[in-house]
């Protein structure tokens, strides 16, 4: 893929009383434009994503193209993307494909969201499920993560202590990230002893819904130096949905024939397209909706084999100074999950790391290859490979 990221921008993640989701998104876009040294009228196209309005009937607009009212009515092609937790990743995949097609040279991809406390009151009918499924208390995403990791722990020998170590690392990384929401480290004991929400997952192992935005400016790779001295190249971005037999959220039943997760397919396609091996990755951001998701996504992406996580995490290999730093900005556990923004936060962090500009949380070994992965309902995954 011949696409470069020449500008990155973020609005801090957290809670921002009196600021709309669109304002968060506009701030992230302005920051990315400033980073690329361009103005909004220079931008030829945009892809934007936000999910707030589609969940629990939030009143606020979640139509990303309304950003033009904040940034300027220049008449550009602006496409809304609505793809579960893979929304922001999808904006980048679609933006990159549009540049590859030759249609345009320079565009913006942005993701933002503003979820109130206790959001994500999914209704069964919205997912094509019968009413009784919600009646009985099955319409709860955290149960899926808990049941998936419980089986995985049984099959591959992952300990409760490892789940706690993942959360402790992400809180610790978040404490070094000025844009993170949760900036207080917790000990592994505090994490293990916090309230059991869905066995084996405790309260401090989970992320929470919040607010935030992130954006990038992308361009044709051969024009990158016009905008920056430190271009980051988007080598590939792939998006996949579930196959027969995969174990997904909100499923009244599963096939007895086991299939693999959409992340397996998305990651394979991404690495193949990039011509990069998982072992080449120097820094990775994966979806850590809770500790177990980070553990399982490491193997689903091919970054390790099933079961290797136990020794890898206990041995500190996924720490910032380790062999494969994972979720260096604190991941979802420290940043929270404004759904539309989440995948773009990962890309922002990876670009920052590859530029060597990540400050206190900079991966020390001069990283050159980065990887990102987001996973969401009802079984969609988006991965990217970025290089210097």
């Amino acid at each position, binding site marked *: 893929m011949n696409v470069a990221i020449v500008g990155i921008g973020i609005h801090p993640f957290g809670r921002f009383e009196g600021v709309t989701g669109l304002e968060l998104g506009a701030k992230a876009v302005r920051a990315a434009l400033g980073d690329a040294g361009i103005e909004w009228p220079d931008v030829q196209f945009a892809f934007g994503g936000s999910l707030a309005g589609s969940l629990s009937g939030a009143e606020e607009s979640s139509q990303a193209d309304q950003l033009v009212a904040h940034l300027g009515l220049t008449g550009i092609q602006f496409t809304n993307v609505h793809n579960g937790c893979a929304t922001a990743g999808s904006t980048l995949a679609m933006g990159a494909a549009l540049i590859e097609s030759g249609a345009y040279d320079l565009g913006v991809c942005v993701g933002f969201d503003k979820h109130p406390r206790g959001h994500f009151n999914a209704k069964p009918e919205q997912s094509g499920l019968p009413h009784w499924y919600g009646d009985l208390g099955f319409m709860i995403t955290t149960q899926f993560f808990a049941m998936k990791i419980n089986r995985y722990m049984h099959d591959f020998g992952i300990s409760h202590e490892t789940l706690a170590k993942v959360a402790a690392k992400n809180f610790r990384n978040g404490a070094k990230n000025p844009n993170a929401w949760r900036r207080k480290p917790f000990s592994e004991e505090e994490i293990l002893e916090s309230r059991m929400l*869905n066995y084996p*997952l405790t309260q401090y192992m989970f992320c929470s819904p919040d607010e935030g935005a992130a954006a990038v400016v992308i361009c044709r790779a051969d024009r990158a130096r016009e905008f920056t001295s430190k271009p980051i190249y988007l080598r590939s971005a792939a998006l996949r949905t579930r196959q027969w037999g995969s174990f997904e959220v909100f499923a009244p*039943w*599963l*096939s007895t024939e086991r299939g693999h997760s959409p992340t397996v397919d998305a990651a394979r396609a991404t690495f193949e397209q990039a011509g990069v091996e998982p072992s080449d990755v120097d820094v990775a951001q994966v979806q850590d909706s809770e500790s177990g998701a980070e553990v399982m996504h490491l193997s689903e992406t091919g970054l390790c084999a099933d079961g290797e996580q136990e020794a890898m995490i206990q041995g500190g290999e996924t720490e910032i100074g380790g062999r494969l730093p994972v979720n260096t900005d604190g991941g979802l556990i420290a940043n929270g999950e404004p759904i539309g923004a989440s995948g773009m936060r990962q890309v922002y962090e990876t670009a920052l790391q590859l530029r060597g500009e990540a400050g206190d949380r900079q991966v020390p070994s001069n990283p050159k290859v980065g990887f990102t992965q987001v996973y969401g309902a009802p079984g969609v995954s988006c991965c990217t490979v970025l290089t210097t």
Partner: protein
Amino acid sequence: MEVTKPIAEDLFTETGDGPRIVGSRCGTCHTVVFPKATSCPRCGNDEMDEHLLAPRGTLFTFTTQGFLPKEPYTGPETEEDFTGYALGYVELPGEVMVETRITEADVSRLAIGMEMELVIVPFRTEPDGTQVTTFAFQPVGSDS
């Protein structure tokens, strides 16, 4: 006499050999699904036959619900008296893994692979006194 009604029509039924939950079986590729469906998610066929699922299986995985669910949950508990419940997937060999309430909420008494059997249990009571029932699975040999 106590009046009961199932939480949904066509979800489970009583037979001479005890209760069964109701799914569908594809007329073309013979894939079994739950609950009843009008088309097959495997081959896309739209001819599905009613299929009563096996009443026994093994526990594939489980979790607990440690906080009172918000809407659309309609269980009888309040914040004050909520003590949690268990749920999981029970593998019915050659058919499906069905997501289900589990009658045993103590995780120390649950284990992946254990034998489970279908039971019909009370779920909540309507304002007019009608008891709403649901399907659940219990460890084989436990008291119902």
